[in-house]
């Protein structure tokens, strides 16, 4: 059997007469014929073809293909892991910085562009340090004095409104529903309740519940609280007491109510003097109690 396709052609009945005669005379022929016959007893293997077809037809045309080999699954898991880790990393990377001045303390810090912020007692500020240079936006809850380095727009967001500047010094105070902004240098744009006001040096504005009575002026060149003077203008007694609680880290209780608004200055570093001023103004007497002081009408 030198011809290396002879038996293939024999199976396919393609042999010439002489080739076939020669093969039939060979001693191998009986076994070959039996092999050929044995194949006719075999059946084509079957499987659940209907189920497979149904699964295929149920695959959406745009969907990812069914990945079967193990290496693809591990590859996919690895890729998913990378994406997840990247996401987690990005999440932490973009976490804002949060700075807090506790009651009775102030807290000074510099922003990444060397702008200076001085937080008054009981105030919080949040900003994103990673994207700071391109997005100078700081969230403020409380009061702070800003010295802004020259650069892109600088925004202070408070619950009451937004203050936007280019490069300047100003004070923002956001307490409850009241927003006070004072400009000490440059120009400040204040946006509150869809009203926009531009303050120049020495001007200040107060929004109470989104309503303003207009701009007023000040001669101060820095906020009084930065040298321990608490200046109030048409402030109600409750707000004044709240501010004293923050500045001195004490508890003040009172059953006094007064419609009289307070305007004036109270020391931020002398509790006795501060309470005396209030008592004289509102006709109150002070009593020491466990948690702090009680103020009651005389």
């Amino acid at each position, binding site marked *: 059997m030198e011809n290396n396709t002879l038996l293939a052609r024999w199976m396919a009945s393609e042999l010439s007469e002489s080739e076939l005669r020669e093969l039939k005379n060979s001693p191998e022929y009986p*076994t*070959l014929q039996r092999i050929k016959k044995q194949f006719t007893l075999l059946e084509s293997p079957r499987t659940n073809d209907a189920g497979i077809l149904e699964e*295929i037809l149920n695959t959406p045309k745009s969907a990812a293909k069914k990945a079967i080999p193990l290496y693809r699954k591990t590859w996919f898991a690895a890729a998913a892991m990378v994406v997840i880790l990247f996401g987690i990393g990005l999440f932490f990377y973009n976490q804002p910085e949060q700075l807090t001045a506790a009651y009775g303390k102030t807290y000074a810090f510099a922003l990444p562009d060397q702008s200076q912020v001085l937080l008054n007692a009981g105030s919080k500020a949040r900003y994103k340090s990673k994207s700071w240079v391109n997005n100078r936006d700081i969230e403020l809850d409380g009061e702070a004095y800003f010295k802004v380095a020259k650069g892109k727009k600088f925004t202070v967001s408070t619950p009451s409104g937004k203050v936007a500047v280019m490069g300047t010094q100003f004070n923002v105070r956001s307490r409850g529903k009241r927003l006070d902004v004072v400009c000490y240098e440059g120009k400040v744009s204040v946006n509150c309740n869809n009203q926009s006001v531009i303050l120049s040096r020495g001007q200040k504005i107060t929004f109470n519940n989104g309503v303003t009575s207009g701009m007023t002026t000040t001669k101060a060149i820095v906020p009084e609280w930065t040298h321990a003077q608490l200046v109030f203008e048409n402030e109600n007694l409750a707000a004044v007491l709240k501010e004293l609680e923050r500045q001195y880290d004490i508890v003040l209780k009172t059953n006094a109510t007064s419609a009289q608004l307070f305007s004036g200055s109270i020391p931020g570093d002398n509790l006795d003097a501060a309470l005396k001023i209030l008592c004289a103004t509102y006709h109150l007497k002070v009593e020491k109690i466990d948690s702090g002081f009680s103020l009651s009408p005389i």
Partner: protein
Amino acid sequence: MGNTELQGICTEPVFTKFFKKHFYALRNYLYFKFGNDDLADDIAQEAFVKLWVNCIEVQHPKAFLYRVANNATLNQIAYQKVVLKYAENHQQNQLDYADPGFLMEEEEFRKKFDAAIASLTEAQRTALLLNRIEGKKYREIAEMLGISMKAVEKRIHGALVHMREQIDHFR
């Protein structure tokens, strides 16, 4: 492959017809190659899914099918022995012959035959079984395997020579 048929493969009736015509050839080709039922099902299914999902772009569905199947990487798959399936009525036929000696001889030959198939190379076995069990012509097998028809004939000839030697050797 005409244009109308190209678009037709995306519709369920045409795809179903195409599937019925080609599924077992592909699936059993993979089975003869790897000897693994589940693997053959999975790879065949994957190839048809790819055809279904990409039906718009595919120009030659049959060639596409075998290309996908042949490209399947199978490093981790342990080869298993191909289990030949005998027709049910084979047993019935045997009962017709009352001679127990004949039955025994028949059974013995069957064992030798199965062993001889198992001792073939993967290339020989795949080509031979596609021809003998699936009834594929040498030209069709050449197309499936991506080799020449002459190469298919050589494989089948080699397979038969080897089987004959195996069987006669143990006689």
